């Protein structure tokens, strides 16, 4: 384990001198240069920069292009560019048919690609317009291996056909589902649909659809060239199994206890969170975000409120910034502690989880004192946080900051230095940095391979640039390192919390801006000009200006982000949630081939996914 302080981005502040007025959010590099670079390499691909009509308020260079060029451009960006784009960060679509404020070049559907270059520390957003009658586009899953699941999701949700995709079928919805849920024409509420019935013939059909057919999943039934050798055993692990951490199904093709191949099957936890975003006011969607990565609590609110604030042009006061960072880091500890315990439990050690639950319990006590809730506080607000910190909060936090490191030292001996645990996890489930980037792995899973990329350092947001902490790295990228990195991250989180504790600025906990929700009420009884906006904003919710934005945070499991499109209404036009676990599970077949079942369990434990984070 080596700790790397990233010198070029790190501002080494002494712990007692945090000055948030000096804090600056990270900015993307110049838009023009990347445009020039691409057009020199592939002059035949016509890139059109986005116009002001779209009002993309984040600074990611965004371009439109014709769908015939997408494959060529992707190939260039990944393989020919100097300092290439090395990660297909996100891929989603937008149903533009009901959009009021749109540019004339926007079609009925937009497929949006979000790529990232780690060497340049730059993102690029590419948009392709599709017409209603021709929802076909070339698949890029041969260039970006992880585009496979993303394209399946877009097909599932929008019915957009990806030509040349190896296995284009439903991914989140059941195979028998009719329609494509994220289309604007698809009902969003049960009351818009006919009452649900399950007559026997439909039930039979549904049950037939659940039957497992190895050939349909691309697996052979027998080994040997003509199947003359022995039969493989197909083991259905999940969706209900003690070690899959939620409703997750993996079908294993096994030779004895060795895994020949595996197919992850997701979607059992899909609740249509993105669709709900289109029916909830900007404010009332906040509790839904809590339940995306349900172990992350306010960490989930973070990218969402940041995105809405960016759209509305709200500047968050310093005190709110520090409160946000402090509580978000608390939830990082809460999530990592749960990971730590369940990881040990998956290996067979029964006790650590109980000790760690006690630590979590104490921390939940603090969260409860702050917010009144425990796992899902929904505590961030557009423009700040819900309440000021309670009296005596500093003593609670101080006690915990003193308490946890000692416990972590004990766990180090009990878990990390245990010889049996090491034998079970060292060199198991390893992947390289290159593979990690190829598959869209972010967060501790990427840093365990020795790749120093932490959004809080590389692209500071919300005031993180003023904090002094290090980015723990592993070097092998195996199960053990993934655990080790998280353990070390907890110590760094404590450091951050301690700095918050020592430097909590005074001042308001919510911005004074008409669109903060709920708006400031102080003068409403004296002043009709305050009362009316207050009334409107509380009853209808705030109207957020037309625009588009993507905001990301280094969440507990990796990089989580919200891509919001506002059509100038009280509700979002499109809410896209980019979650880390989705990408992490997709690479499971790659790392599990040749493993024993017991190794797979260790690997699953070490990935630290949450099914709600995968299926949304």
């Amino acid at each position, binding site marked *: 384990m080596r700790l790397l302080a990233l010198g070029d981005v790190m501002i080494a502040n002494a712990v007692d001198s945090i000055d948030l007025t000096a804090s600056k959010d990270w900015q993307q590099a110049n838009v023009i240069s990347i445009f020039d670079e691409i057009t020199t390499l592939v002059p035949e691909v016509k890139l059109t920069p986005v116009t002001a009509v779209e009002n993309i308020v984040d600074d990611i260079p965004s371009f439109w292009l014709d769908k015939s060029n997408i494959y060529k451009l992707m190939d260039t960006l990944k393989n020919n560019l100097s300092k290439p784009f090395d990660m297909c960060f996100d891929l989603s679509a937008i149903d533009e048919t009901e959009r009021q404020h749109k540019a004339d070049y926007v079609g009925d559907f937009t497929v949006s690609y979000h790529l990232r270059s780690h060497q340049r520390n730059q993102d690029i957003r590419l948009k392709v317009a599709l017409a209603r009658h021709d929802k076909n586009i070339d698949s890029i899953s041969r260039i970006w291996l992880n585009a496979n699941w993303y394209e399946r999701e877009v097909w599932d949700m929008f019915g957009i056909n990806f030509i040349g995709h190896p296995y284009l079928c439903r991914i989140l919805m059941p195979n028998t589902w009719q329609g494509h849920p994220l289309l604007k024409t698809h009902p969003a509420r049960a009351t818009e649909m006919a009452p649900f019935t399950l007559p026997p013939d439909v039930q039979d059909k549904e049950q037939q659809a659940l039957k497992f057919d190895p050939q349909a999943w691309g697996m052979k039934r027998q080994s040997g060239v003509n199947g003359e050798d022995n039969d493989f055993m197909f083991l259905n692990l999940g969706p209900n199994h003690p070690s899959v951490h939620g409703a997750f199904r993996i079908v294993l093709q096994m030779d004895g206890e060795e895994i020949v191949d595996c197919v992850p099957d997701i979607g059992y936890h899909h609740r249509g969170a993105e669709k709900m975003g289109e029916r909830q006011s900007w404010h009332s969607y906040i509790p839904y975000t809590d339940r995306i990565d349900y172990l992350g609590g306010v960490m989930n609110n973070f990218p969402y409120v940041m995105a809405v604030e960016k759209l509305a042009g709200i500047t968050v006061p310093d005190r709110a910034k520090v409160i946000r960072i402090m509580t978000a880091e608390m939830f990082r500890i809460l999530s990592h502690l749960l990971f730590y315990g369940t990881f040990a439990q998956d290996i*067979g050690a*029964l*006790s650590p989880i109980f*000790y760690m639950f006690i630590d979590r319990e104490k921390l939940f006590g603090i969260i409860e004192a702050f917010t009144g809730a425990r796992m899902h506080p929904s505590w961030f607000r557009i423009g700040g946080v819900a309440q000021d910190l309670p009296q005596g909060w500093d003593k609670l936090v101080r006690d915990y900051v003193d308490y946890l490191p000692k416990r972590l030292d004990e766990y180090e001996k009990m878990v990390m230095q*245990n010889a*049996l645990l090491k034998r*079970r996890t060292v060199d198991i489930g390893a992947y390289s940095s290159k593979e990690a980037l190829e598959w869209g792995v972010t967060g501790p899973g990427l840093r365990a391979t020795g790749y120093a990329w932490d959004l809080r350092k590389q692209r500071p947001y919300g005031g993180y640039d003023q904090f002094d902490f290090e980015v723990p790295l592993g070097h092998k990228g195996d199960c053990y390192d993934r655990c080790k990195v998280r353990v070390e991250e907890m110590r760094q989180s404590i450091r951050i919390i301690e700095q918050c504790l020592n430097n909590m600025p005074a001042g308001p906990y919510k911005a004074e801006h008409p669109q903060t929700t709920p708006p400031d009420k102080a003068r409403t009884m004296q002043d009709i000009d305050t009362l009316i906006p207050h009334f409107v904003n509380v009853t209808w919710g705030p109207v957020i200006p037309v625009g588009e934005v993507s905001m990301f945070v280094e969440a507990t499991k990796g990089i989580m982000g919200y891509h919001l499109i506002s059509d100038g209404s009280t509700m979002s036009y499109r809410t896209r949630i980019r979650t880390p676990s989705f990408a992490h599970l997709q690479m499971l077949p790659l790392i599990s081939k040749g493993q024993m079942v*017991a190794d797979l*369990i260790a690997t699953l434990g070490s990935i630290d996914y949450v099914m709600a984070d995968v299926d949304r």
Partner: protein
Amino acid sequence: MLELLFKLLEITVIIALLIPIAAMLVWVERRMIGIWQDRLGPNRVGPFGILQSLADLLKILGKEDWIPPFSDRLVFTIAPVIGAVCVLMSFAVIPFSPSIGVSDLNIGLLFFLAMASLSVYSVVLAGWASNSKYALLGSMRAAAQTVSYEVFMGLSVMGVVLLTGSFNLREIVLAQESGWLIQTQFLGFIIFLIAGIAESHRLPFDLPEAETELTAGFHTEYSGLKFALFFLGEYLSVTLISAMSVVLFFGGWLMPEPFASWLPPLVWFILKILIFVMFFILLRTSLPRPRFDQLLSFGWKYMLPLALINLLVTAAFKLGGFYG
């Protein structure tokens, strides 16, 4: 005739005591694990929750006796019985005190090993008859594990046999009057204990049931009374391995003089067993589980040579007359 009646009475009493003891062990284990894991454990039924096992038993008796339609009914039903019976039979040769003990079989030790071997049928048949993949994987693991660890178990106790010159457990105990065999057979004891844990499928050797991997391993499909029989078998075998360790290495009911007069021999014997049982429970709270192939290679690469070395050295010392 009267003698036979007395024998039958003795057997009945021993069985009637053993089964409640095994049931109590479930409570002891849950309570102790609870305390060691910083929580309370079952403490609601009766004083200190002592009647928890009784409540569990009543609940289990009230469950539907369900046999999965895809299983082999006959074998599915017999399998748990085999397990419990094999362990109970082993108790026949255990000398509890100078006067208590079902049988003074002069091949007692071999009888114990034979019963341990037979009990693997219970697990293998259960896995096979369940006709479920998880159960099958569990029973495959159990078969490989038990067959391997039996070898070392047998070898590890041969040192004891060499030193005492007998397979009769009562004679082995009596031979320890001058000193417990743990002094000379320490290595043998360690190997016996490890093999014993493996035989009783307890953590860290609980691979056949490995909850986080195979849901419940060989007894995945079992419920109700049949499941309870497996459970009973496991706790009885924990008691059995503890009793055997005490008999073979810790002088059975014997205690050195100042202590011996404090308590009756039977009580000493039970106390010693309890210490081992506690050790088993503590082990379960503290260790993770090795992988299947690691477990087997540990057995064959380390345990087997060590057991052989132990046997050779003991034999050499015996021949050299060190033990008189």
